[in-house]
C-alpha cells in the first residue's frame, strides 16, 4: 500500500473545541461500574439460599421432635416453612442463572459458527 499520511497532530497541542466538549460529556456520563458476569453472583446467592433453606428445614424438623409445647411447635413450623421456601427459591435462582450462563455461551458459539460458515461460503 502506498497510503502515507502526515503525522496527525498529537500530544502537547491544546484541546480542540470538539475534544473539550467530548471531555465535558464524558464527565457527565452515568458510570455504573458494571459487572461482566452477573449470573455468577446470583448463582452463588442461589446456592447459599438453597443450602441455608435445607439446614433451616432440618433444624426445624429436629426441634419439633423434642417439644410438646404447641407455641414452640408453631414457631418451629414457621421456621421450617421459611426454610423450605428459601430452599425452593434458591434452587430456582440457581437453575435459572445456570441456564442463562449456558445459553449465553451457546449463543456466542452459535454466532461464531455462523460467521465461520459464512466466511467459508464466501471464500469458495
Amino acid at each position, binding site marked *: *500500500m502506498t497510503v502515507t*499520511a502526515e503525522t*496527525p497532530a498529537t500530544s502537547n497541542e491544546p484541546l*480542540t473545541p470538539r475534544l473539550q466538549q467530548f471531555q465535558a*460529556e464524558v464527565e457527565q456520563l*452515568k*458510570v*455504573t461500574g458494571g459487572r461482566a458476569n452477573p449470573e455468577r453472583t446470583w448463582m452463588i446467592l442461589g446456592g447459599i439460599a438453597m443450602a441455608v433453606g435445607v439446614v433451616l428445614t432440618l433444624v426445624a424438623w429436629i426441634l419439633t421432635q423434642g417439644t410438646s409445647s404447641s407455641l414452640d411447635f408453631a414457631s418451629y413450623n414457621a421456621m421450617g416453612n421459611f426454610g423450605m421456601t428459601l430452599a425452593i427459591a434458591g434452587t430456582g435462582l440457581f437453575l435459572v442463572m445456570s441456564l442463562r450462563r449456558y445459553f449465553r*455461551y451457546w449463543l456466542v458459539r452459535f454466532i461464531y459458527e455462523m460467521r465461520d460458515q459464512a466466511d467459508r461460503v464466501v471464500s469458495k
Partner: protein
Amino acid sequence: MVTPLLELRNLRAGYGTIDVLHGVDLVLNPGEVYALLGPNGAGKTTTLAVCSGQITPSAGQVLVCGREVNGTSSDALARAGVCLVPEGRGVFPNLTVDENLRMYTHAGVNYGDLRERAYTQFPRLKERRRQLAGTLSGGEQQMLAISRALSTSPALLLLDELSMGLAPLIVEELYGRVSELAREGLSILIVEQFAQAVLGVSTIASIMLHGRITRTGPPHEIADELSAAYLGASSSH
C-alpha cells in the same frame, strides 16, 4: 502532559465464562491513529467492543479522557462521541443509500448536512444514492458505514477490520480518507488483521496475540516484527 483520550489498564474481558482479553494495556492520545494488529482470534474485536461499551470488562479499567467508564452503556458512549464502525460494515442492506443516511439522523443530525458531508467525502455514494445498500460493493458499504460514524461528529472513532474482503485499491482509498480525518484532529483506533495499509496512516501500532498486547511501537518497527509475531516467533514482550 495531555490526558489520553482512551486508556485501557490491565483490561480483562470475555463472553460469559470465556475470557478473551488477559490484561490489555493501551494508550491513545488525542489526534493519534492507533493500529491494533493481530491474527484472527487475538481479541482485537473484543477490545473494540469493550471500548465502545458493548462488553463490560471483568477486571481492569477503561478510561476515556481520564475518567473510568466501566459499565457505561454503549449508547451513552456513542452519544458522547465514541463511535464504532463494526466488522461487516453494519449498514441496512434493504434500504437505499439515502434511506440509510436518513436512518442516521436519529441523533438529531440534520439530514441535509449529513447527506452533503457524506457525498462530499465519498462522491461515489452520491452516484449510488438510490441503490440498495446490500447491493453496493464492499468498499461502498464501508464508505456508507464511515459516513454513519461521522454523522455523530465523533471524537473517537473505532474501526474494525476496515479492509476485510476489499480490493487493495479500495482499501488504499478508504485509508486515504481515514488519514484525512486524522489530520482534522479525530482520534482513531483501528483494528486490522492485515497490516500493510493501516501502518501507512497510523502514528503508533501494537501487536496483539492471545488476548495480550505483546509489542507497542512506531509503525515502521512494528511492520518489521509483524511476520515473526504472526508466526509465533515473537517474544512475549
